[in-house]
């Protein structure tokens, strides 16, 4: 676990500290417990010296989850246990930008497909469902890390026909985020370049994002993979898969290969 030696940490200590107050929101505490337990076990089971570091990190997280107190958050001035804490300022958020070229579809065709937001569930891997509430608003159900479900309402805040769609989450979204997708004519006037830009606060803060990364569910990868699946769907009419194919006998498979 890194030692925070920032100014704010010293300032807090100088003020006499806050004691063992709860500054970690309950969802986050669950993530800490889960993640901490896994890391601690992984570290101890690895049989290597470096595993000890992992085990210490894991134990720290277990403590954090169990007590609701995080000294690192205290040092950074974050309190995710407060009401509306999950609607964290997007200035603290994570930014993802990805782009991809789609060969055989025009910006108009892709805009029309994307604008009907329910279509997005066809290729976004972690989206369980999207329901239109009205022309601008939609309700999303998404699979989050550690097997949780996350739901939010989103509204389209800006659009330019065949060029741009911008949206953001509304009200008390668990995963506050804003994003945009742009469609531009491709190189040599062929096809379309699709640019996705996302700014978001993941559940359980940055620590949650770090743990999710360990499990291979990192947002940059997710966006890249979803864009790739969009491209497959648009260009070849289907999303390449091997789910459900025959396979030989093997002992427990500890890791299952990721789909595109």
């Amino acid at each position: 676990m890194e030692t925070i030696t920032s100014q704010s940490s010293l300032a807090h200590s100088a003020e006499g500290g806050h004691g063992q107050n709860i500054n970690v929101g309950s969802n986050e505490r669950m993530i800490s417990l889960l993640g901490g337990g896994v890391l601690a076990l992984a570290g101890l089971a690895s049989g290597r010296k470096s595993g000890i570091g992992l085990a210490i990190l894991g134990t720290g997280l277990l403590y954090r989850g169990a007590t609701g107190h995080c000294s690192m958050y205290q040092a950074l001035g974050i309190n995710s246990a407060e009401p509306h804490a999950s609607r964290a300022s997007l200035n603290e958020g994570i930014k993802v930008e990805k782009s991809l070229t789609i060969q055989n579809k025009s910006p108009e065709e892709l805009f029309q497909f994307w604008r009907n937001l329910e279509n997005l569930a066809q290729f976004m891997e972690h989206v369980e469902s999207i329901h239109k509430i009205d022309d601008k608003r939609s309700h999303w159900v998404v699979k989050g890390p550690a097997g949780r479900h996350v739901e939010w309402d989103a509204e389209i805040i800006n659009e330019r026909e065949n060029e741009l769609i911008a949206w953001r989450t509304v009200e008390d979204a668990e995963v506050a985020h804003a994003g945009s997708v742009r469609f531009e004519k491709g190189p040599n006037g062929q096809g379309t370049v699709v640019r996705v830009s996302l700014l978001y606060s993941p559940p359980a803060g940055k620590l949650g994002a770090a743990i999710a990364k360990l499990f291979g569910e990192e947002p940059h990868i997710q966006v890249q993979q979803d864009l790739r699946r969009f491209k497959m769907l648009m260009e070849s009419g289907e999303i390449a898969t091997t789910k459900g194919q025959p396979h030989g006998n093997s002992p427990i498979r500890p890791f299952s290969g990721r789909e595109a």
Partner: protein
Amino acid sequence: MKALCWHGKRDVRVERVSDPEILNPRDAIIRITSTAICGSDLHLYNGYILGLMEGDILGHEFMGEVVEVGTEVKRIKKGDRVVVPFTISCGQCFFCKEELFSLCDNSNPSAGIAEKALGSSAAGIYGYSHIFGGYAGGQAEYARVPFADVGLLPVPPELTDEQVLFLSDIFPTGYMAAENCNIRQGDTVAVWGCGPVGQFSIQSAWLLGAGRVIAIDRIPERLEMARKHSHAETLNYTEVDNVVEALFELTGGRGPDACIDAVGMESHSTSPMHYVDRAKQAMMMENDRPHVLREVIQSCRKGGTVSIPGVYSGLVDHIPMGIAFNKGLTMRMGQTHMQKYMKRLLDRIQRGEIDPTFIITHRLKLDEASQGYDIFCNKEDECIKVVMTP
């Protein structure tokens, strides 16, 4: 159904597994009638390729009868007898449209892994690890083939399985290797490696107008096949001090116009550098042994072309780039753009210009696949190519 499954280094087993099913609308299901072991399967067998998982079904050279088609398959129908290309291509992306089918954007479900491992994701390949999509392979009784309309090649009933099976990989691979040499009428072409791809490279070089073909290897029966069936001059590298010098002498001091590396990353040599390469591999400092690649660069004439069908998967050391630059060499390489070549090579077989059956040395049942891998790997019993029937 029965299928050949990978379980570890030098451990492959025929097991009972579930039958394949249509998973996407452009899929077809093939009942396999003939299947072969490829030299590149040996890289899997010997544990050189990462991304294999226990139980993966191997095999990428196969053919058979279509028994089921998905709803979006238009060109191929149930009952068609087809050869299957080892690469999977969607036919619609930028690369497929450019006829660079082995670079397809859309056929690898594990594209993210491929990008991390190899810089970019290219086409999915049957039975060749999760880096290339983790598709179940064709050393089995049935297989699912995606994008059936793009890949499957119908073959006429008067040609036997053995005559057309190698359109699935090694014949187009050898042909593309020769085509990549930019052969002008009468050119001299040198081919390293007298395995199946090397043999088809030699024969394709003749088809493309070469005036002279020199084949390099050390295994007697492979050199014999190169002489007898492929009509090449041969050079046994264990019998000369220095292959590069020997080639200069054979070509009047100039060097061959084009050189084909049909050996790839598991090259063998008697030089001290070979043991340095092996030591580096053991210490995970180098993945591949590029001995042949070094020799090819040193041997090729100034302004000539180096063509690389041999598979490389990682990092190599001590490549004489200075020599390559100084000589102004052209290097062309890569996985075969199968769908570009299969039909026209089938035409050549039908016209009697080439009979691919010369390459087969062993015919086994699928049940004997494990022995097949063993003798192919150890080059025992004069093994050059193993064909299996389920």
